[in-house]
């Protein structure tokens, strides 16, 4: 009975969605949107790419035009990490026991993989203004590399205190760069460095700097969350 009701509800909702999306005036076919009557049109008009200097237009919007929203997103992530730390963070902690005992080959092989994943994450963070990616996914990849070490070594603990210090420094520097924009130019988080040539690694003004800081902050935050999940109170 419950399943039948659910099926009926989803069929009705699906019909509604299809009817709504078939309305060609409000939702044109894929790839045939006329940008001229959208708000996002102003980001694509000529001159803006040269003004921001970022080859990846998504990054130009996320960090350049909407940098203040990104600061809010980082704050949201910080608050969720704080909540996890409040729930799980006891004084005396030891590793959660895994069901298996990792052998020597697994431990050494995972160290090699750790370096490769870390290099990938650094590439994604540094090329955030040139290719898809950026601070948030790059930071999450750093955290997944740390997670790999936690999984393959049942005695491993990362340097939690160092991560906390790194996170604090990166978050403060983000705000300091924003305030520099306020002091040197006119508004918070405004670009005060030269935009450079589009496509160069060192271009787009403050965008690469901010993305490196976001990557460090997100990586250390999620690594802290992983550490909180994989430790428990001392049972002794």
């Amino acid at each position, binding site marked *: 009975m419950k399943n039948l009701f659910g099926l009926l509800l989803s069929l009705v909702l699906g019909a509604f969605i299809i009817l709504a999306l078939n309305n060609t005036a409000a939702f044109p076919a894929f790839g045939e949107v006329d940008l001229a009557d959208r708000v996002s049109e102003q980001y694509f008009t000529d001159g803006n790419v040269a003004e921001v200097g970022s080859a990846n237009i998504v990054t130009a919007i996320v960090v350049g035009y909407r940098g203040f929203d990104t600061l809010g997103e980082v704050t949201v992530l910080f608050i969720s990490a704080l909540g996890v730390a409040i729930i799980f963070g006891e004084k005396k902690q030891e590793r959660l026991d895994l069901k298996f005992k990792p052998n020597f080959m697994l431990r050494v092989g995972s160290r090699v993989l750790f370096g490769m994943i870390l290099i990938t994450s650094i590439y994604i963070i540094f090329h955030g203004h040139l290719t898809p990616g*950026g601070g948030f996914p790059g930071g999450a990849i750093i955290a*997944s590399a740390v997670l790999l070490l936690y999984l393959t070594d049942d005695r491993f603990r990362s340097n939690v205190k160092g991560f906390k210090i790194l996170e604090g420094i990166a978050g403060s520097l983000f705000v300091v760069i924003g305030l520099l924009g306020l002091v040197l130019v006119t508004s918070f988080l405004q670009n005060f460095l030269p935009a450079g040539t589009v496509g160069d690694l060192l271009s787009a003004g403050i965008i690469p700097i901010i993305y490196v800081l976001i990557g460090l902050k997100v990586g250390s935050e*999620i690594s802290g969350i992983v550490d909180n*999940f994989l430790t428990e109170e001392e049972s002794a």
Partner: protein
Amino acid sequence: MTLFDIVSLVVGALLLVIAFLAINAKKLINSVLFLSALSMLAVVSFVLLKAPDVAITEAVIGSGLVTALFIFTLLSVRKEETK
């Protein structure tokens, strides 16, 4: 019907099927694994929709970290129950 349409249709149908399985799985661990597969297929559909930025984030967070955290939570809960 082009190849793009066929792939989109197959991925969309698989998304629906796997979402149904994730809701209705009897064991919680199977549910988590179906959720991970759902994220992986969502990555494919994001790439098809030409949103590589979202695809990278979904691949790392949706099918990597969230799955791991869910599984560790299940492990901890099971340990508490057997105590």
